[in-house]
């Protein structure tokens, strides 16, 4: 059954089609759900209103209406950006591409995965920084001062927060002893705490500091509110997105929320046990003994964990004002990085000690 569903015996072209479709679903479905559930509904309820109610039951078709609206709009290129219009038009695609590259290494079940990279987390952190290029290009090519400021801020911020993120992940990698995301999931679900394996060993408990740092960095990488100065509607109008309209803006928009979804998936894999349930519940010992139905249940479990994390990301986004650029940098370099270095040291010492 695995073979049919996950296409390892099919011809290459059919495999590719399955993977492309799977990738689209894995990126767009969480993005759409996140936008509807959190951006439309949770935000509205937190502000004592109902949000969109007209399109479909409880406004559930609103997103399709919005996409339709954006697709109809004119694709404007500012006059000063005309000489390099190709670069201007390319930028949003680069941003979205990094999201798709990111989802490649995410495991959804024991066999439901796109590729099984040995250095999966390393790869994920590396491709996630490609989006910086897209944003920088967008800011520069727009020939707009606000966009330029936004692009530069974004570059500074994303580079600054890449570091604590990597350092936070190192703690997990040390504890799991592997960089393979699939094996990190297995290590958490087969693990035990003080001999008790009732809930496995999710690293959110042992690596709590790293988890907090990782989530803060994710918030910054996604430019969500305490760290949203690259966009900063009230200062820079919309930062690097100011000059984009129509479907190019839509791509930025999808990119933002799809990346939120994918980063939340990676966080739940690293810290919450990913697609798995503690293997002891069903008497499994290794990944090969996991029952086949986990290939269907796994994605749902991962999805639920992802939603829980996105809930926190969005909740903080909706309730706090934004920092200033220099305060943000100071926070990254003077607070997060030293703490995560200490965390790595402690983890290494404890790993050796036990």
């Amino acid at each position, binding site marked *: 059954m695995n073979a049919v569903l996950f296409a390892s015996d099919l011809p290459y072209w059919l495999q590719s089609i399955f993977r492309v479709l799977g990738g689209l679903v894995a990126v767009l479905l969480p993005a759409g759900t996140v936008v509807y559930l959190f951006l439309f509904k949770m935000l509205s309820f937190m502000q004592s*209103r109902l949000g969109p109610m007209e399109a479909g039951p409880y406004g559930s078709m609103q997103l399709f209406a919005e996409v339709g609206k954006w697709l109809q709009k004119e694709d404007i290129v500012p006059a000063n950006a005309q000489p390099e219009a190709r670069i201007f038009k390319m930028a949003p695609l680069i941003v979205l591409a990094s999201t798709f590259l990111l989802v490649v290494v995410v495991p959804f079940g024991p066999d439901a995965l796109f590729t099984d990279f040995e250095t999966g987390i390393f790869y994920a952190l590396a491709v996630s920084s490609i989006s910086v290029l897209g944003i920088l290009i967008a800011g520069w090519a727009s020939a707009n001062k606000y966009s330029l400021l936004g692009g530069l801020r974004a570059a500074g911020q994303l580079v600054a927060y890449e570091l604590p993120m990597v350092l936070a992940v190192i703690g997990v990698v040390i504890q799991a002893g592997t960089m393979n995301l699939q094996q990190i999931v297995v290590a958490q679900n087969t693990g035990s705490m003080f001999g008790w394996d009732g809930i496995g060993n999710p690293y959110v408990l042992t690596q709590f500091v790293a988890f907090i740092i990782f989530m803060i960095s994710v918030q910054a990488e996604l430019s969500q509110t305490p760290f949203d100065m690259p966009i900063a509607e009230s200062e820079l109008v919309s930062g690097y997105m100011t000059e984009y309209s129509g479907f190019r803006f839509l791509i930025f928009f999808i990119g933002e929320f799809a990346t939120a979804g994918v980063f939340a998936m990676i966080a739940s894999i690293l810290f919450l046990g990913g697609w798995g349930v503690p293997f002891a519940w069903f008497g499994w010992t290794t990944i090969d003994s996991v029952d086949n139905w986990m290939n269907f249940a796994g994605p749902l479990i991962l999805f639920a964990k992802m939603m829980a994390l996105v809930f926190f990301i969005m909740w903080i986004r909706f309730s*706090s004002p934004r920092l200033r650029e220099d305060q943000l940098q100071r926070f990254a370099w003077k607070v997060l990085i030293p703490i995560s270095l200490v965390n790595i040291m402690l983890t290494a010492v404890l790993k050796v000690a036990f």
Partner: protein
Amino acid sequence: MAKPKVPGMFKGLGVTFATLLATAKNGADTVQYPHEKETPPIRARGVIALHEDNCTSCMLCARSCPDWCIYIEGHKELAPPRRAGGAPRKVNKLDRFDIDYALCMYCGICVEVCPFDALFWSPEYEYSEPRIADLLHDKAKLGEWMQTVPEAPELEAGAEKKGKK
């Protein structure tokens, strides 16, 4: 300096979450406009209604309007006498009474200065038009609004006498 300490931010998170729960439980503070409507207060200045029989085309309203959006034309006419054998009366007949709601700033001075109680405020508000020229309401249309004019509200305790309108 920029270190977010926990308590202040958590309070803010608490406020938004409490509002989320309250909205889910008690419903939103907004109304879904085309489906449900709020009733405006009695005194709301929505649209001006004209009681044509009372109008003597004295032009006071047109003159006192700050942006001159009332257009009046009239002529004098002989009406049959009240008593048999009397002389025919001269009455002012209203030919045109237009209010241009594209210009009107809803100050209510015309309603106030009218000495014969021919103009009234109605709280009706749904009369937007796709064409700006259609906002010029003529005598007939202004007369239709008369049906929507409410009674003047009761006054608060301690008020000296009934208001005029």
